[in-house]
């Protein structure tokens, strides 16, 4: 994707806080990113790093309370999705931006047929008649590779397997030909062969329909084959972003480096033991005032607990990371940089 293309989605300074009994939880802390037309952006990070909350914040899908959108702008189609009225927002949801969720077992309404649930956005957004919606539903099910589409319209979600249900979810998300598709760990709940089939399907649909995709996963291995660009999240912040090749070849942030070591090598010697990162992502009871990764970082030094690093550009275009090691002047021991 040429860097010059206008972003289709431009997120600036997004902040989302949960007000809980134990105090505020700062789940998303000043997240900036953009998405260009037709691009596939991979979003990675351990479970709990704020990927889902970030994406749901874009469409204000989090129930409030407890969620509260503190700050930021989400520019899409010339309007700020955080500012527009609920009616205008509804015209974007499911029509211009489609959403697929993690668990296909629970994401469909168990008491309505697939046909009904597919027809809903078609009728609401495109104003199709019942018969038109039906025809289009059959097309959509065929598009996502569900055999015997016409007959299956009147089946209920429990009559489909996990993989088939996720295909139905994809069909619903694509029903109105969206410009952006957000897939939140769409294959995490599925077993490996089904996972591969769904990834293949999305690749294929992307070529056919040309929408931009945000693909969330905690598994860098999934991203390698499909993403154009990768964004790494930790504790509700973007800690590194860049073209997929750059991220895999030359990761800058210690967290990205550690994540990469947890990915089974596809090429090269398989004997190498997989590593895990010790510890867990923190629950952010305060807005970050220092590097959130410092307790788990083997390179941490004084400055890391005094300031919060911001995303800084490095030599390769579009590649940025938030780590003081990149700021050569402040780094105490030169050998740490090689690590």
């Amino acid at each position: 994707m040429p860097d010059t293309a206008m972003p289709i989605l431009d997120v600036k300074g997004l902040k989302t806080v949960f007000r809980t009994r134990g105090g505020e939880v700062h789940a998303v802390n000043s997240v900036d990113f953009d998405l260009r037309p037709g691009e596939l952006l991979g979003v990675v990070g351990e479970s709990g790093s704020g990927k889902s909350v970030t994406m749901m914040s874009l469409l204000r899908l989090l129930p409030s309370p407890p969620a509260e959108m503190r700050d930021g702008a989400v520019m899409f189609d010339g309007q700020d999705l955080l500012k527009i009225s609920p009616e205008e927002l509804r015209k974007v949801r499911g029509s211009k931006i489609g959403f697929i969720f993690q668990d296909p077992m629970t994401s469909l309404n168990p008491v309505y047929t697939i046909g009904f649930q597919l027809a809903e956005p078609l009728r609401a957004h495109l104003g199709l008649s019942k018969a038109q919606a039906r025809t289009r539903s059959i097309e959509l099910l065929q598009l996502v590779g569900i055999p015997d589409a016409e007959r299956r319209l009147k089946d209920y979600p429990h009559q489909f397997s996990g993989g088939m249900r996720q295909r139905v979810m994809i069909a619903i998300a694509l029903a109105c030909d969206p410009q952006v598709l957000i897939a939140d760990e769409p294959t995490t709940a599925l077993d490996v062969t089904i996972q591969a089939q769904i990834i293949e399907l999305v690749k294929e649909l992307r070529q056919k329909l040309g929408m931009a995709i945000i693909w969330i996963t905690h598994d860098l291995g999934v991203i390698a084959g499909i993403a154009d660009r990768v964004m790494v999240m930790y504790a509700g912040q973007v800690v590194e972003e860049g073209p997929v090749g750059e991220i895999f070849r030359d990761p800058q942030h210690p967290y990205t480096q550690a994540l990469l070591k947890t990915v089974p090598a596809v090429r090269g010697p398989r004997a190498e033991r997989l590593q895990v990162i010790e510890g867990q992502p923190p629950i952010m009871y305060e807005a970050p005032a220092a590097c959130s990764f410092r307790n788990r970082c083997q390179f941490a030094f004084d400055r890391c607990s005094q300031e919060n690093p911001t995303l800084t550009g490095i030599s390769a275009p579009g590649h940025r990371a938030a780590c003081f090691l990149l700021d050569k002047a402040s780094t105490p021991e030169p050998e740490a940089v090689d690590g």
Partner: protein
Amino acid sequence: MLTFTFRRLLLAIPTLVLISLIIFLLLDLAPGDPLADQPLSIPPEVRQKMRDALGLDSPAYVRYLLWAKQFFWVEPLVFVDWVAGTSFSEGMQRILSWQFRAPVFDIIIQRLPQTLWVVGLAYVIGVLIALPIGIISAYKQYSWFDQIGTFVSMIGFSVPPFFSGVLMIVFFAIMLPWFPSIYDTTLVVNDFESFGQQIRQMTLPVMVLALQTTAQLSRFMRASMLDNLNHDYVRTARAKGMTEKVVLLVHVLRNSMIPVVTVIALGIPSIFGGAIITEQIFKVNGLGQLLITAIYANDLPMVQTLAFIFAVLIVLCNLIADVLYGLLDPRIRYD
């Protein structure tokens, strides 16, 4: 579904026969003489003749079988005759009430309308009020509406009808003489004025009973809605761009109604139980009051028959609840 219903109906028969036997044996064990309230001046030999006429001295199993034959065979025939104008039941002995000296079912048929009007209407009103309250309370959780709902339900839960009933009489019949405190069963509704009178005399008992139903059901509806509002499919519906109205009244409501409908069906028999007390307070001479007076008068055939009818109602409502569950939830397949 049809075969399931049919199978369950067949299974209900032995259950009900067993229940009728247990009711009979329990009543048989209870002390009391149905002739106790006859004048003491009746000579012993006449008294004995009366006992013989009532079959009081025959063995328990004979009396049970007689009752069973009358209940399961004679009374249905009487019903058929009444509907079709035939005369199958001619000359057959029906279940007779000892205190009224008249067929038990004739008296039940007389009393049924009062109970249905007061108790049945109260239940319908209670349900119709409870459902929207539950829905709104859940959607606006912790709002002032929800808080008031919680408070009123707490009162409805904790204050028994024999207290709220008396309270209502004190406030709305005595202090403010808006409604009569005693239900006039002889009232014939034939014009606008008597209709208004009927409405007025039904108001207090219906309110007392409806408050109870509303309190329990609205909480249950609220809990069920809240439970479903947290489900992933709700988020999917919103992500599809559905309006809040559709999310709530199409997606969440249908799922939330599944347990609520069963509770409504299962609550029908218990409301008849509650009516026993409320009917006493407001002097509504319905089935509840009939049962109480029959117990006082040792009118065993009447008590036996009424208790058994309640049992049939419970079994039937259980069956209805199961069938409704299957109809509302496509994941349930009985066959």
